[in-house]
Every structure is written in structure tokens, then in C-alpha cells.
């Protein structure tokens, strides 16, 4: 009973120690250099198409629905632009990308590390005298922190571009009206907060997936459990972190 109550705290401590160990080996990063770039390509560049697709649809849908909601003669059409562009920069661009990547990247990392744990490859690395935490976890977490902002930029550019395009094609508002509205209320804080969120989400998705994968136990079922939990926990903590960043910085 007490054990199950204390389980979250134990998990949090285990997680913190693991990530701490990973960052403690940051001075050995030159040894994992090649591995770091492999992870960056797998986490970042391979995710560009799916992130762009999700951003395109969210931008288009946001524009159409905002135009539908603001269909009164008293509100100038430019307001649609000044709602859609900051919304994508602040929230949609980064959160939608975060969810997509929690599924795509988080599940992949957890499955990979879980299988390595179950098939005792991690033990083999340890036997070879390699620092398995530094070798396996640090490149993935660093790749997430570096590549999520890149994906955030992709998401924003594609999302706002699709929003403008949809507004124009759908006859809701012209390109210049959209841009005038977007420029009127543009603040540097909006993309800055989006950037901070993307860094946070990159860390959350990769570190949780690494933790879940690294501490997988019990065969194929354990790998499945780890993968599921990695995706679900990443999504939950993305939402929590989203709220925290918004409350702290806005």
C-alpha cells in the first residue's frame, strides 16, 4: 500500500538520477559525437514531413474556424490574421509538433532502448566498459533539445503559410489583410515563448522515453508497456509544461 503510494516519488528520483548521470557524462560527448548526429537525423530531420503535415492542417483549420467565428461586420478581417499567427507561434505550432513527436520519437526511443535492455545489449555495453547512459541517453536527449526548435520553426512556417493560403483560397481574407493583422499585434515574445516550449518539449519527450526504455523489464510485454507509457507520459508532461511556461512567461 505504502509502496504503491511512494512509487511516483521513487520513479521521479530514478528519472532524475538517470538524467543527471547522462548530463554528467557531457564531457565525454566527443566519444558519442557520431551517435549524436545519427540521433539528430532520426529525431529531427526524419520528423520534418510529419510535423509539416500536422502544422499545415492545424494552420488551415485554425484560419477557417477563426474566420467562421468572427463573421460579423464590426470586426475587421485583419483580426483573423492577428489571431491565427500568434496562436500558431504560441501554442499550436509547438504543441501539435510535440504530440506528433511524443508518438513518433518517444515510442521509437523507448522501444529501441527497451529492446536493448531486454536483449541484454545494455549489459554488454557495460561489460565492454562503455558508459551506457552517456552512450545511449545523452545523444538522444541532446538531439531532442537541439532538433525540436528546428521542427518548431518548420511547424510555424508551414502552419502560418497554410493559414494565409487557406484564407486566400477560401475567400475569407486576402494575403495582405492577413499580414497586416498579424503584423499589427506581433510581439517578439510570441516566438520566444514558442522556442522555450519547443526546447522543454524536446527534453521531456526524449528524456521520458529514455527513462522508460532504459528501465524496461520483462521481455516483449515489458517493451510494449514501456513504449506505451513513454508516449502517454510525454503527452501528459507536454501539457503540464505548456501550462507552466505560459504561466511563468506570459
Amino acid at each position, binding site marked *: 500500500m505504502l509502496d504503491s503510494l511512494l512509487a511516483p516519488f521513487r520513479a521521479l528520483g530514478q528519472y532524475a538520477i538517470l538524467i543527471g548521470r547522462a548530463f554528467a557524462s557531457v564531457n565525454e560527448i566527443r566519444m558519442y559525437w*557520431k551517435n549524436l*548526429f*545519427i540521433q*539528430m*537525423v532520426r529525431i*529531427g*530531420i526524419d520528423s*520534418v514531413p510529419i510535423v509539416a503535415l500536422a502544422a499545415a492542417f492545424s494552420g488551415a483549420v485554425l484560419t477557417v474556424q477563426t474566420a467562421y467565428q468572427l463573421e460579423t461586420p464590426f470586426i*475587421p478581417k*485583419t*483580426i483573423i490574421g*492577428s489571431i491565427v*499567427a500568434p496562436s500558431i507561434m504560441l501554442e499550436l505550432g509547438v504543441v501539435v509538433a510535440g504530440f506528433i513527436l511524443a508518438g513518433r520519437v518517444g515510442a521509437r526511443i523507448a522501444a529501441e532502448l527497451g529492446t536493448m535492455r531486454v536483449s541484454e545489449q545494455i549489459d554488454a555495453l557495460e561489460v565492454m566498459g562503455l558508459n551506457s547512459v552517456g552512450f545511449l541517453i545523452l545523444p538522444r536527449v541532446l538531439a531532442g533539445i*537541439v*532538433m525540436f*526548435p*528546428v521542427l518548431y*520553426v*518548420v511547424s*510555424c*512556417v508551414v502552419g*502560418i503559410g497554410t493559414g494565409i493560403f487557406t484564407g486566400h483560397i477560401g475567400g475569407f481574407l486576402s494575403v495582405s489583410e492577413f499580414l*497586416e493583422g*498579424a*503584423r*499589427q*499585434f*506581433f*510581439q*517578439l515574445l510570441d*516566438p520566444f515563448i514558442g*522556442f522555450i516550449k519547443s526546447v522543454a518539449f524536446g527534453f521531456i519527450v526524449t528524456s521520458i522515453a529514455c527513462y522508460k526504455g532504459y528501465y524496461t523489464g520483462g521481455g516483449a510485454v515489458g517493451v510494449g508497456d514501456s513504449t506505451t507509457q513513454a508516449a502517454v507520459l510525454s503527452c501528459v508532461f507536454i501539457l503540464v509544461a505548456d501550462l507552466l511556461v505560459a504561466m511563468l512567461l506570459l
Partner: protein
Amino acid sequence: MQYSNELKVGAAIILAALAAFAGIRFFQNVPLFGSSYALYAEFDDANGLVSGNPVRMKGVKVGSVERVRLDPKTQTVRVQLKLERGPTIPEGSRASVSGISALGGVHVSIAPGPRDNPPISPGSTLPSLESSSSLGRLTDQAPALASKADSVLRNTSATMATLNRLISRPDSDLRQTLTALRGMTNDLEEVTEAEKATIRRLLQNLEAVSGDLRAFTGENGDSLDVAVRRLNQSLGRLNRGLSSFEKTSATLDTITTKLNNGTGTAGRLLNDPSLYMKLDSAATRTNTLLEDFRQDPGRYLEDLTLVKVF
């Protein structure tokens, strides 16, 4: 061709950084490679102006508001404007805040100076054009207008009260005047009533007279016309006569002047007394001669006897 992972990642990061930089500059409405310049403007009231609002000249966007700051010393709002290089703003231009902030349409509008002026130099301050919008002017004047309207209404009310009091008091002048006026009106009415027949007759006579007059004019139109024409001719002749008379009188005037001055024969005659003296002496002598003749005619007749018969 196979690219290395390092190249892919590096290219992706640099592209993303460039896209982010360009996007931010794009939405800040700054031309990508810094061809803009700063101007300042000062206002009494920012009217809800915030950074990012457009700057318009003749309704065309020429830049954006960079920063809005309240100057604590002068209590004025100092606004930094970022303007594009393209359209030049001539010297002598003025800036004003227009639009209503509730509708999100606040902007700085620049009223350009004369076209021939040289372009304004970057970093200078545009003077403000006060109360640019009629709505703003109306809002500024509203309290004064309201108080004026109030005082007018109060005065009217007091006047009405006095009038009311005057009318209601039976011994007031106004009331007596009104009573007298009513009496006069009644009298006039009675007179009109009594003399209705007379007035009607009078009017009928007048009508008949005017009808006669019209008939007379109609019948003798030609004769009248002839008479008038003749009168006209006579007047013309008279005019000519008068003008010749005028000439004659001018000539006479010259003659008189000459006479006065003693020029010409007649003038000498008038002005020279010697002839008179001579005539006078001649007359005296003739008188003496005649006297002599009367007293002793024989002396002369002797010589005059032409024929000595006896």
C-alpha cells in the same frame, strides 16, 4: 549521393535559424536587410498607440511604430517610428495619432509637407498635428459645449419663469400691454365689420379705375408712343441747344477775360482813360465855342455867309 549526418543536421539547423530570423523580421514589419530608418514624433496623447501599429502617409503604409514612451519631464508621449527607405517624407511633415483603439485601428498618420522640400533627415522629430480627427476635436470640445448648452438652457429657463410671472401678475406692464393689444384688435375687428360694405365699394371703385386706366392705355397706346418719341426728340434738341449755349458762354467768358485784361481794341477802350479825357476836353471846348457863338453869332456868321446878297 549520400550526405553525411553532420551535414544534414547542420544544414537543417542553419535553415531553421534563418527562417526564424526572417520570419520574425517579416512579422515585425522590418525589411529583411535593414533598409529602414528611425524618426521620432511627439504627441500629447498616445490614444492607445502601441509598438507594431502602422505608420501611414496619405493612407499608405510607410512604416511601423517602434516604441511608445511617456517622457516624464515634458509629460508628452515620445514615439519612435521605423520607416521604410522607399517613400521619402518631405521636411515640414506633421504626424498625428488617428483611429479608434477599440477597433484596433490606431495608427500614426503623417501629413506630408510641401513636395519640393528636401527629404527629412533620419532621427529628427516630426511635430504633431493636433486634433487631427474631427471626432477627437469634438471630444475635446465636448465639455465646453455641454457647459455652454447647460448655461443657455438655464438662462432660457429663467427667462421663461420671469415671463410666466409677468403674465400671471394682473398689474404688470406686459399684461396691460397685452390687454390693450387685445382691445385694439377688437376695435379693428369692429371697424372692419362695420365698414365692410364701404371697403368693398372702395375696392370695387379702385378696380374699376384701374380697369379704365388699362383700357385707356390699351386704346391710346400708339399716340402715347408717338408723344413719348417726340418728347424724346425735343429733349435731344434741347440737349444740343444747351451744349451750343455752353460753347457760347465759354467764348463770352474769354471775351470778358480779354476785356478785363485790357487786351484788344475793346479792352483798351474800356481800360484806357485817355480817350475819355480827350473827349471831355473836346466837349468842354465845344461848349465854350457854342457859348461864344450864342453870344456873338455875327462873328461867325460873317464868315459863314456864303452868298453876299445884301
